[in-house]
């Protein structure tokens, strides 16, 4: 069964090749299995290359989503990531440069403390916070934001227009949340949050969905 997908480690990511004749559903199930098994290959922030033309467009898109959901980057082209920091202009012209921002997002900034009111973290890349984000704090990231704690501040993921960016927190209760150019605010009546959640863009609005971790 394991031969349906072959994983080859490259300098800047993982290349996937698929057994001839394997159906898309088998490949997807197989990959999901691997992703959920906690395999050491699939570390958050790793880029996964799937050769162009392996699958139909919507199928490739489904794979892209699956990898994004697991914190990985997805690419159909085998190329060295461009590590130059994207400039602020990207916000105005997101379409051609999103790619660049996505590549940038594979780096990750780790903050090993609680971010308190009045403090601000800005990064071109993704941000991992091992601590809380308190009310009055701001996190702005070019990539995704992962908070191992409670998020009560203001978070903005995909600041350069990357709509695939997400925000994950053990308890996600931000005052305001922004992904790319879409903003949502907390409900006026505070809700009790008991489970880890992820915020992503679905149909041009930000939705929260439970995740296990």
């Amino acid at each position, binding site marked *: 069964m394991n031969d349906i997908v072959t994983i080859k480690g490259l300098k800047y990511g993982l290349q996937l090749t698929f057994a001839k004749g394997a159906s898309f559903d088998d490949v997807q199930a197989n990959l999901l299995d691997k992703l959920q098994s906690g395999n050491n290959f699939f570390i958050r922030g790793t880029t996964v290359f799937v050769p162009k033309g392996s699958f139909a467009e919507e199928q490739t898109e489904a794979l892209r989503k699956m990898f994004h959901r697991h914190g990985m980057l997805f690419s159909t082209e085998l190329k060295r990531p461009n590590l130059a920091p994207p400039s602020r202009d990207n916000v105005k012209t997101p379409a051609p440069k999103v790619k660049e921002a996505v590549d940038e997002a594979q780096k990750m900034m780790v903050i090993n403390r609680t971010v308190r*009111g009045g403090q601000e973290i800005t990064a071109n890349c993704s941000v991992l916070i091992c601590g809380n984000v*308190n009310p009055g704090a701001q996190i702005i990231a070019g990539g995704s934001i992962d908070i191992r704690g409670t998020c009560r501040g203001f978070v903005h993921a995909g600041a350069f227009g990357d709509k695939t960016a997400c925000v994950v927190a053990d308890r996600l209760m931000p005052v305001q949340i922004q992904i790319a150019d879409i903003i949502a605010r907390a409900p006026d009546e505070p809700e009790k949050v008991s489970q880890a959640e992820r915020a992503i863009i679905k149909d041009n609005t930000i939705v929260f969905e439970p995740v296990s971790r």
Partner: protein
Amino acid sequence: MSQILVITSGKGGVGKTTTTANIGVGLAMRGNKVALIDTDTGLRNLDLLLGLENRILYDLVDVTSGRVQYKKALVRHKKFENLYLLPTSQIKDKSAVNPEQLVKLCEEMKKEFEFIIIDCPAGIEQGFKTAIAAADTAIVVTMPEISAVRDADKIIGELGRADKENVKLVVNRIRQQMVEKGDMLDMNDIDEILSIACIGQVPDDESVVVATNRGEPVITMSNSLAGQAYKNIVARICGENVPFLKPPKEGFFARLKKLFGLL
């Protein structure tokens, strides 16, 4: 080994000065030699709480500017012989003292005193930066109220930026009835946001106002709950492990009222 504590809060009116006076008196009652330094230049209050206003001759600004020796400016407390106050000027403003001067002064005073407690002004500007410069332990005072907790959070962040890692929390003016009704933040809510070690939970107590106006800190009143809470804080500063006060049992009439309230 002497300790330098700074009592700070960010927000005004949460009880920094009251806490300073009570911890100072408490430590002195235990036989420690204690100096209190008021750094709230221009808005000094600590002398009033201790009932020492009429004994002030020189102030902190006179000392830091080199006009007099600090020993000349110290005011000894009338009841507790181990307790001294270094008052500040009521005429000058916060820019009259800078951090280096205070650090130097504290270094000198360390030789004489076991505890030096610095009363910090509200805010995060120069007065705050001066007050925290010399301290090795910071005690952040807050109240169960979102604005006070938010400001305490900010202050803890600022203390971290100034490399003050030893930060303790005192929650002041807790109203147990309101907490039980869910109208006031409880300790869990506060702990969750601030996540630093709490060394005191002081109930809101009318006797604090009485004590302030009389110039005798509430810790000297044996029948006051707030006084007892401050005694416990002092014990914890001295390294003792004291459990937190339990809320007082409701009297018969209070229970009766509550019963009718429910019906």
